[in-house]
């Protein structure tokens, strides 16, 4: 069964990592769901880059096994609080990640 990250994550957030970088955390309560997201490469560099219109070369993705979390980081388009910035904390940039989907359960038994 396919589910969105919005339905399966306990928290999806974005935030500045200093004034020049944006970072996104997709965090799970359930280790199995986390491993599905990680192993299916749901948040891969090319997909994330495409979603946000970024050069894949600047996008970094990390799987954090102890935190049951996948993390994405890339440079901010403009620095925090500068003339053309739209989000000083970087806190409202994660919405496009919510609709990405993951296949849950054993795919060989899926209908």
């Amino acid at each position, binding site marked *: 069964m396919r589910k969105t990250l919005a339905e399966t994550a306990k928290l999806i957030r974005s935030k500045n990592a200093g004034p020049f970088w944006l970072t996104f955390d997709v965090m799970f309560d359930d280790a199995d769901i986390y491993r599905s997201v990680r192993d299916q490469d749901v948040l891969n560099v090319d997909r994330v880059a495409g979603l946000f219109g970024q050069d894949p070369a600047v996008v970094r993705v990390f799987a954090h096994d102890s*935190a049951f979390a996948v993390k994405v980081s890339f440079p901010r388009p403009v620095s925090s609080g*500068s003339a053309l910035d739209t989000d000083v904390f970087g806190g409202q940039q994660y919405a496009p990640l919510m609709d990405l989907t993951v296949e849950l359960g054993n795919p060989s038994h899926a209908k």
Partner: protein
Amino acid sequence: MKLLAATGMLGSGFQEASIVRGVDKGAAMIGCDSGTTDFGPHPLATGRSQFSRAAVRRDLDVILVQARRARIPVIIGSAGGSGGDSNLAWLVDIVRDIAAERDLHFRMAEIRAEQSKETMHRLHSEGRVRPLAPMGPLTDEAIDSSLHMVAMMGTEPLQSALEQGADVVLAGRASDAAIFAALPLLNGFEPALCWHAGKILECGAAAVAVRTAPDSMMAELHDSAVDIEPLRPDYRCTPQSVASHTLYENADPFNLPEPSGVLDTLHTRYEAVSDRAVRITGSVFRPATEYTNKLEGARSVGYSTIIPGAIRDPLIIGQLDAWLEVLDENISARLRQTVGESVKYTIATRVYGRDGVMGGLEPIPRVEGHEVMILWDVISDSQELSHSIAASLSHMAVHNPIPEWHGLISGVAFPFAPSEIDRGPVYEFHLNHLIAPESPTSLFPIEMTSV
């Protein structure tokens, strides 16, 4: 050795009972970070704190009274919001005020982190400055246009102050984790444990499972492990909550850079030692081949006047991009007549309901609702000029035509009169570089006084 973090940011608050409990449990020091770049460049640019004097004074009062009761040192880093000289002076004044009122006496160290243009030109010419991604190389122009520049100190200046007998250390811009790593490193504890403890403590109780309000946190260092435990009885840490903290505000959760090296958490283990405490083992600290202090700076970008305006007409919304383009051409032509060709200005147009929140990152940059808000921001070299450009802009916007309507329209709903709001000077962070200093303490003069 037990380390006590008062809260994640001085002035954000904590329960007094938490500090009392931490001190009674045998804390060897109380630390607190007082700065952040979260709010944008203005605390550094203006030298003013985001939090009020009353908020910071309340937190400091509890910290100082409890630390003097137990005769343990206090270390405050990144004083007054951004750790520049005037931010530090503001914090020093509050500390003196509390000491006088409470009849507290101690040795105080003030450690400055602000860098003069002369110093930065010298370091630049000596080839000691290099950029951090995504920034380009440092330029003389970037130095000269700075309002304030600060270097981020590591543990060494803090340790020097402690060795000189400081009871209260007030530091300008400092690594958040260094506030907590300084004392245990001085006492020979394993560097990876000291730095990992510092990384958790710098955010106060942020690493608990459910944080309802900012509060204190304690770390206990052992020979090969560090235990993290919150001080509010209703808070608890879990292995996942503590592990997750390496994610917060860091671009890379496994390589956390500090002036003297990198904390590597790739193979760190987090395990519960009770239903509220977590043990950390297995972190590695890799000493840097070259010691570096991060450089931060802010400069002015001019004066801003904003205009919020909204549109409900579906005919205008349906051709919004073209409508904005026509407006842009009309305002450019008008300003060439009024203020002249050579005058520099920026008009940032944010369209809420289309891509106002995400700008260029928005994957669906189109209007899907029945109304939009437009926030125009005019920035130029003077408030008067920005205001006059904004006045022309709002007038032209309200009457900007579309082909479907014949005759003069009023196409923008302004919620406020006057529609133009002067916002004053605005700033930007323009430095993100590393300095290779002569020594870890060379950029950070220490002044010792008796209070």
